[in-house]
């Protein structure tokens, strides 16, 4: 909200400079900055931009700001002049008011001023309004805008002659009723909308905007001046639904002072008579509910000190209430405080405690360290696992990415066969972010694509985050860990050549190891559409599918706009964490030396490394301790359709040194049995 320093001075004789005032208000809870001096018409003191929180509707006016300043400075508010004379003609003969919905409008009042001359407002008023960004229009309209900003009470001026039937009816709109507001837009209303109407038609959208049909024009002579209280929630709902927002709807929407209606009407009337001339009909056309009883809140001194951590005496608290101009009665160790009508935000004791704290000064409340029982802080296991994985991947040269949880529908498609329809947002911020991701892969592939377009060809990324699913029980969320990289490494990366499937496999094994589970088994069943069927695998531990890895299917390369293949690994961290952990246990070291022998076998291509290793283990006997595959070779000296696999065999015995004879015969036995089974030959 904009307010000028000079305008405030009409209410209160502040001796602070605008900068000091802004600082003081900020520390009282109204964040204030000096707005840039764009026009020189502000009177010299500058324009203040005040950020008023939703609970301080009472500050949406200069009067309200002045009250707040008075509470913080011990200055007093100047009375605003208001005097006028009524004429002879009774208003009741000219107009009557009927309120059909008194819940939405507990107080409707209006005065009638006849014979005005519509003309530009005096200079000082035009300048005052212009400084806060309100365009001066004519004397009558400007006065209503002036009182709105000055008192915080919106008014509306109707051209009396355009009102039919000498009656104002405050009613709900009929469903589908059409109404054209002052901005020349036609609105289609529902029975949720409150309308100010005459006998024939709607003439104002209550509390929000007047109608085009009764607008005050240069030729207008008689003014019906409305001043009312409209219930906030109704005004907000209509305003939001129709998308019509005004200074008026803003104030009614937050709640105006129910007791402020009369004063605002009187002041506006006095000013209109002063600047536009004319004569005032006698009386006020009004329908008002009986005044609500004043609200009294009991404030306990002990409670104040308990919440704030202070030791204030009742006198100290009372003096703060004095500053606020709140009336109270002392009783025991409590104060019964009468809440003024303009402070709709104070309803309970704790609201008063905030006022005490605010005016005492937050900076005056000493900072203390609470006493608390010592309990070890608990951190979810998944967070600890994520941190360890992060360390691992970072030290291996990958960079961590963070992507939005929502993706484009078209990128969700490859996952839908398995995961089903994605969760859709009903009000996405864009079509590129309209469904919740079911995997972290699309986001990372888009990252790779963006990077490649910018000339960063080699990309190695990982991300840890949630994916979202519709399932039989509603909606579920899973924590995933995903790696996406181009085969080309960044320079100096840990493996010099291009990366491929086996690098992903290695990563998966390392991650499983960090999580403490056994090494995952791989099988080809990815049953997805996403991967190259020959270069992908499913990861299983204890029969549960913990992840997938492999090369992106070539058909998706162009969909995701990639210049190179993409290598992907995705692991379900929640599932991984739920699996049984390996426990370490000490096994004694052999005192006797072990021996390593290599064996190279040429076998058919269809024989897998695992198969052959298992075979060797099976026939190696007790003394064969470990079988490690260390090379695969297909080349010049190997016949077509065959390949050579080289294993390192570790032999040993806990109780003795093995003899050469034993070793040789074991080796030969291995070879004979394996070659008999596979037809393999020694290389």
């Amino acid at each position, binding site marked *: 909200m904009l307010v000028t320093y000079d305008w405030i001075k009409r209410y209160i004789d502040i001796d602070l400079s605008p900068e000091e005032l802004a600082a003081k208000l*900020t*520390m009282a*809870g109204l964040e204030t900055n000096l707005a840039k001096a764009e026009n020189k018409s502000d009177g010299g003191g500058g324009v203040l931009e005040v950020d008023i929180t*939703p609970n301080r509707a009472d500050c949406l006016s200069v009067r309200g700001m002045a009250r707040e300043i008075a509470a913080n400075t011990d200055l007093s508010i100047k009375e605003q002049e208001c005097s006028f004379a009524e004429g002879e003609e009774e208003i009741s003969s000219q107009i009557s008011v009927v309120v059909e919905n008194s819940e939405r409008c507990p107080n409707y009042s209006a005065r009638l001023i006849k014979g005005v001359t519509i003309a530009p407002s005096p200079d000082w008023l035009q300048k005052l309004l212009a400084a806060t960004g309100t365009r001066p229009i004519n004397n009558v309209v400007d006065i209503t805008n002036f009182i709105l900003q000055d008192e915080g009470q919106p008014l509306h001026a109707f051209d009396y002659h355009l009102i039919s039937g000498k009656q104002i009816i405050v009613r709900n709109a009929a469903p589908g009723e059409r109404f054209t507001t002052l901005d020349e837009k036609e609105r289609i209303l529902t029975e949720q909308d409150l309308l100010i109407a005459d006998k024939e038609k709607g003439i104002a959208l209550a509390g929000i905007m007047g109608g085009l049909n009764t607008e005050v024009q240069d030729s207008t002579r008689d003014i019906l001046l409305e001043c009312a209280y409209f219930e906030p*929630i109704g005004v*907000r*709902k209509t305003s939001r639904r129709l998308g019509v927002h005004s200074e008026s709807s803003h104030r009614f929407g*937050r709640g105006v002072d129910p007791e402020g209606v009369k004063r605002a009407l009187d002041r506006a009337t006095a000013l209109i008579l002063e600047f536009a001339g004319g004569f005032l009909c006698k009386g006020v056309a009004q329908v008002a509910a009986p005044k609500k009883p004043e609200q009294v809140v009991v404030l306990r001194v002990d409670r104040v000190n308990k*919440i*704030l*951590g*202070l030791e204030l005496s009742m006198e100290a608290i009372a003096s703060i209430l004095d500053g606020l101009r709140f009336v109270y009665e002392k009783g025991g160790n409590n104060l019964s405080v009468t809440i003024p009508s303009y402070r709709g935000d104070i309803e309970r004791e*704790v*609201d008063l405690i*905030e006022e005490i*704290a*605010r005016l005492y000064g*937050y*900076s005056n*409340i000493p*900072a*203390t*360290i*609470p*006493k*608390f029982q010592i*309990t070890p*802080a*608990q*951190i*979810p296991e998944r*967070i600890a696992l994520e941190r360890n994985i*992060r360390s691992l*991947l*970072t030290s291996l*040269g*990958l*960079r*961590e*990415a*963070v*992507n*939005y*949880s*929502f993706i484009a529908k078209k990128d969700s498609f490859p996952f839908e066969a398995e995961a089903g329809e994605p969760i859709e*947002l*009903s*009000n996405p*911020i864009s079509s590129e*972010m309209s469904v919740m991701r079911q995997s972290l892969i699309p986001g990372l592939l888009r990252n790779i694509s*963006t990077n490649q377009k910018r000339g960063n060809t080699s990309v*190695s*990324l990982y991300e*840890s*985050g*949630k994916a979202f699913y519709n399932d039989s029980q509603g*909606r579920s*969320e899973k924590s995933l860990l995903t790696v996406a990289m181009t085969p080309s490494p*960044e320079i100096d990366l*840990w493996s010099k050549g291009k990366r491929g499937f086996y690098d992903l496999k290695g990563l998966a094994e390392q991650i499983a190891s960090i999580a403490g589970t056994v090494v995952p088994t791989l099988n080809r069943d990815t049953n997805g559409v996403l991967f190259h069927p020959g270069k992908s695998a499913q990861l299983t531990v204890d029969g549960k599918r913990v992840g997938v890895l492999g090369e992106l299917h070539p058909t998706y390369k162009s969909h995701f706009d990639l210049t190179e293949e993409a290598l992907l690994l995705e692991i379900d961290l929640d599932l991984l964490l739920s699996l049984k952990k390996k426990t370490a246990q000490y096994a004694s070291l052999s005192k006797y030396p072990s021996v390593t022998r290599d064996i190279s076998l040429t076998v058919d291509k269809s024989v897998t490394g695992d198969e052959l290793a298992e075979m060797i283990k099976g026939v190696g006997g007790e003394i064969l301790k470990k079988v490690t595959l260390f090379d695969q070779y297909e080349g010049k000296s190997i016949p077509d359709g065959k390949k050579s696999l080289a294993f390192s065999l570790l032999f040993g015995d806990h109780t003795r040194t093995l003899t050469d004879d034993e070793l040789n015969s074991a080796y030969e036995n291995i070879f004979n049995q394996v070659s008999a089974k596979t037809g393999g030959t020694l290389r």
Partner: protein
Amino acid sequence: MNEKIQAIQQEAETEVSNSTHRDELNAVRVKYLGKKGIVTGILKGIGKASPEEKKAMGKASNLLKNSIEEKIQARLHLLKEEELKNRLEKERIDITLPGNRSHAGSMHPVQAVMTEVIDIFSRMGFSVAEGPEIESDYYNFEALNIPKDHPARDMQDTFYISEEVILRTHTSPVQIHTMEKVEPPLMLIAPGKVYRCDADVTHSPMFHQVEGFMVDRQITFGDLKGVLELFLHNFFGKNAPVRFRPSFFPFTEPSAEVDIGCVLCKGKGCRLCSGTGWLEILGSGMIDPAVFKSVGYDSEKWTGFAFGMGVERLVMLRYYIDDIRLLFENDVRFLAQF
């Protein structure tokens, strides 16, 4: 005889000092002290002399032998030292050439800062709780004293999946879930992703928050100040000025916003702090009794404070990043800077 011995001594010494390396020195030793060496030869010729002569000669030649031996040892020592010195000089390398290192990747700055914030609070004793990102309107708003149609809802534009199911706009629902299940006293932080329908240079439709709260029998506003100051000094440095000013949140009363002195201009006023000299970091306040009511805590018995901060804000302030969108583009040139 004596002159002869002296002459041999001189000759030997000269030859020893002229030896430039071990092989030469060895040859000299063999020449004089070897089986067929000169000094050995003298001793052999002793047989023909008289007993007094024998005694004198024996003594003299032993002295000679020892002296030559000494000299040889000394020279050997010297030669060894020089050899070592030469070798070390030859092996000298250029230490300014690049080191061999395996190229490291990087953590995302948001995750790094999130980890730091979590660690500061967990060291104080705060446990960490998490909750779903898709939430119900009840847990995200109503239980936090934000009824439907309340103007406070305008403060947080919400993504809807259906009328009652939304993407959470803050991590406060986690606190409600926890308080419903657990009795006080409690000390908890809730980090995680949150969503608001807003996008510009400083706002993103998805961002990260760390919220927290502390509930016990005697928690005061003073305690709120103390704990949050402790956090801010740990994160921004002991000398960072901190101030608390009144504000409004529907779920706290009294509410406060916590600022630190501007990291860029140190309080003089600049574009980053909009000329105020202060940067807003945290929202906080004493937990509103209405919130305790939603979770079944007796607000006469228990009091507490709550606080929350945006992680991206901390990241952007620490690294002087001017556009929040950079954090989600994942350009590797950007990520490599952290």
